[in-house]
């Protein structure tokens, strides 16, 4: 199973080498107090976190509670303007060191003022340190992997099951377009005629 997963990861890595050239037409946003004021080059240090927030608690409150990108969502008309003025703290898919279950596996979430603020899981967040991906912050999964990678492995195996079944169908139905026996018979014929 792991071999299939590694194979898929290999294919993915190869395919990601072919990236689209930089013809992006986007400009950068600047929004009031929490504006990043930084460009895409600032990957490790995050987007001016110490300049924008007084403490890690303020940063977490901005990202995860009422001010965050998840408040209201896209279809809630009252809040979609806010949805578009949210500025992230790290470049996707990176998060601050100590985020969620990084460094503390058994942390718990608490509910304060009707909205989740994840107080226990985010106590050890380090400002200006976006060195881990979100996947690395999801805690332990199985086989020594993190939870996100384990989830991906499970669903990769699930999606490969119909692939195997289809392959078996092809074997059962003996497709006429199977090129290998045709090619071998053609080679035989050619060698016979040449001799």
């Amino acid at each position: 199973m792991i071999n299939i997963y590694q194979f898929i990861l290999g294919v993915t890595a190869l395919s990601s080498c072919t990236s689209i050239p930089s013809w992006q037409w986007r400009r950068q946003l600047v929004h009031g107090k929490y504006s990043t004021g930084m460009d895409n080059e600032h990957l490790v240090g995050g987007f001016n976190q110490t300049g924008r927030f007084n403490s890690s608690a303020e940063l977490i409150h901005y990202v995860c509670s009422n001010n965050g990108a998840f408040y209201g969502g896209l279809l809630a008309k009252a809040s979609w303007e806010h949805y578009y003025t949210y500025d992230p703290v790290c470049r996707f898919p990176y998060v601050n060191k100590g985020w969620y279950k990084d460094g503390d596996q058994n942390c718990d979430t608490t509910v304060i003022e009707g909205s989740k603020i994840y107080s226990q899981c985010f106590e050890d967040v380090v400002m200006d340190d976006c060195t881990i991906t979100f996947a690395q912050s999801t805690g332990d999964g199985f086989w020594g992997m993190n939870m996100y990678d384990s989830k991906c492995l499970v669903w990769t195996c699930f999606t490969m099951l119909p692939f195997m079944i289809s392959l078996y169908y092809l074997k059962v139905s003996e497709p006429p377009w199977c090129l290998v026996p045709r090619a071998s018979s053609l080679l035989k014929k050619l060698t016979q005629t040449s001799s």
Partner: protein
Amino acid sequence: MNEKMVFMNMMFSFCSAIIASDIECLAGRLDFETTRSFFFALAQFCPVHVGILLVTAWITIVDGGKKKKTPVWARYMENFSTAYGYCVTTFLSCAGYNICLTDNNIPEDDGVCEYNHYPSEDGKVSAYKRIVLCSIYVTYGVLAGVYGSKITMQLKSGKGKKASPEEKKIRRWCYLVCTLYMGMTFTSIGGAMYERYNRTIKMPVPCETSWSPGFMFPMYMVQFAICYAQQPMKKGKKFTTHVVSSAFAKFKSTNRSSSRRSKKSSKSTGGERAS
């Protein structure tokens, strides 16, 4: 034709497996701007392609005459729709994350759509992609409906030749595919137009995550549905029916033999006791 559809399902599964290797792109193995949107667009069009192949096959059966030759217009339409679907949807999927046309209807904040710190899909480009898909859904949905009703007319009139059980089965499938395509059309129009039109769809890093696969589950269901629909026949039965009945028969035989053994052993033990 059946092998072609099985192959399409294999391609669908392969693309889904690649997407599943980094479902939300949170590990950095895939990225929304290139690989993820490319493979997602391919995976999205594979079941549609299976539907196109099915409808073309039904057209061939109904209009193909004795030789069962696909009409030229159906062949051209199939080739055009397939090429158009794959090329345009994959291009627009990738373009949606790389260009900016929408303004999110926020007058006081000019050019609010642009964002380059985390992936965001342009609302207008996404809508165009859905409209392209819609045009294919509508075309083949209508064709499936028309050919379904043609078979119904043949069955009702009953002049000349009688409809075979194969035709009755095709009629049922025609209506099913027509309904599916129309449902997909309305879903796509809903996604392309109303609230989502002219709105950038953003994917920021979440605060926490769960084991829930999200959109992967419906994809997985479609894969298995296609697998079930395309199963080959074995000894005049569907493959799954054959497997289940043979497994049941095997279970019965093992059950009988075990009960015989137990009877024998009870007799022998009874004999021992008697002796």
